[in-house]
């Protein structure tokens, strides 16, 4: 039947929720404020739309320094002030930016997030961020809570698999409430 033919142009495969791609543009002059720099690019709620977007935007290795890609659920803003993020935190991992596999690891992360396989049941995941910086880039997985230790630990363990990390590579969970210079991770894996 048509419904079983996943190559059919008519049938799009719905994702669990809508997602929005945001981009943080590096500042090129001092007049630009944060609100000028962080912008939603587009939204998608099917697998096919996701691939269309991926094929139309630069891969991470082609982004300028100080750029961020953010992919967030529905209309959640990729900022800790958003009410959906307020009580949450993030798992993060720093990677040498010359590392050639950032493109692949970012795609693997996106697939795990939009396919919802990084989360067991309840949707803890609010979004994911890739920050391109000089010398090191950062992957961050944003969650809606900071105190569901068991769920967060499971998510962190899967995040490490997605990023192909070994025992010796560490990821850290930092609640948004403690973000800042003296931020202390509450979990380390």
């Amino acid at each position: 039947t048509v419904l079983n033919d996943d190559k059919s142009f008519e049938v799009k495969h719905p994702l669990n929720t809508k997602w929005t791609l945001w981009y943080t543009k590096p500042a090129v002059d001092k007049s630009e404020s944060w609100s000028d720099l962080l912008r939603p690019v587009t939204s998608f709620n099917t697998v096919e739309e996701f691939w269309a977007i991926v094929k139309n935007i630069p891969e991470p290795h082609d982004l300028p320094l100080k750029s961020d890609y953010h992919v967030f659920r529905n209309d959640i803003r990729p900022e800790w002030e958003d009410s959906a993020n307020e009580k949450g935190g993030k798992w993060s991992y720093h990677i040498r930016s010359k590392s050639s596999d950032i493109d692949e690891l970012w795609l693997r992360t996106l697939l795990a997030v939009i396919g919802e396989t990084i989360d067991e049941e309840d949707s803890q995941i609010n979004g994911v961020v890739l920050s391109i910086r000089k010398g090191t880039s950062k992957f961050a997985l944003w969650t809606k809570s900071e105190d569901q230790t068991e769920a967060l630990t499971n998510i962190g363990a899967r995040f490490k698999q997605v990023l192909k990390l070994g025992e010796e590579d560490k990821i850290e969970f930092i609640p948004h409430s403690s973000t800042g210079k003296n931020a202390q991770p509450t979990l380390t894996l």
Partner: protein
Amino acid sequence: MVKYTAEELLHLKPEETLPVDFDAEEFRAIIENIKQIQALKEEEYAAHGFTNR
């Protein structure tokens, strides 16, 4: 909850590039432009060091 494994998502990747509902050409142009500005600043910096900062 609707779930897809990475394998399933890759299997559903269309061969052809489908249209998107935003101006992708403009988006890529903005990024190209920033890279050029950053490269010029790097050159400037390499040529003059700290002297004109």
